[in-house]
């Protein structure tokens, strides 16, 4: 029983293949309708591509800098906070140490 079941997909594939072969054979045997113009033997000419002298467009973001080392001046930045105000690293200069955390909500 299970062997017969296993044969069912194989048989289906064979039947499909046979149908496709028959269709192709008939299609080739049938003459093309006289009303349709013959397809051009050569493809349409492609317009010549002008040589580009300028380099490819630069990436949207500058390449990533190396991780700054301990003892380096921390790179200054300003970013919007989720509550709307703009926070700059320099806001804390001279007043507080900063624990700068890079985080992800996923973990």
């Amino acid at each position, binding site marked *: 029983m299970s062997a017969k079941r296993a044969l069912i997909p194989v048989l289906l594939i064979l039947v499909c293949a046979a149908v496709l072969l028959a269709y192709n054979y008939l299609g080739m045997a049938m003459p093309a309708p006289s009303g349709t113009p013959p397809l051009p033997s050569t493809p349409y000419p492609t317009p010549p591509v002008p040589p580009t002298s300028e380099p490819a467009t630069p990436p949207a*973001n*500058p*390449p*990533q*800098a*190396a*991780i*700054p*080392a*301990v*003892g*380096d*001046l*921390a*790179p*200054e*930045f300003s*970013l*919007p*906070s*989720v*509550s709307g*105000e703009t*926070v700059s*690293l*320099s806001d*804390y*200069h*001279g*007043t*507080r*140490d*900063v*624990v*700068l*955390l*890079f*985080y*992800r*909500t*996923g*973990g």
Partner: protein
Amino acid sequence: MQEDYERFTALNAEIVAVSVEEAAIGANVSQLLGLQYPMLSDVEHKVVNLYGVYNLLGDSLATPSVFLIDVEGVIRWEYVGVSTSDRPSNEMILDQLRALAGSP
């Protein structure tokens, strides 16, 4: 981090958190946790690139990392995670802050 926030402020430190994820997500999380410190949105990857911590784990997110910056703006300690869950404990950061306070 939030539960230890007062311990950080007692050491004259401010926590500044940066994520590359959409500000909306950050806002939801922020409301959820009732965070007291600024959460910054770096959707253009400006600051993560500046600190070299973007996409180090190949997931197009900020690598979990901590930079301890003193009042002069100098980096005094840093920790860059090597996996998504690799981050220093609050205790570890507080120890570094205390060491910083003790040094001239």
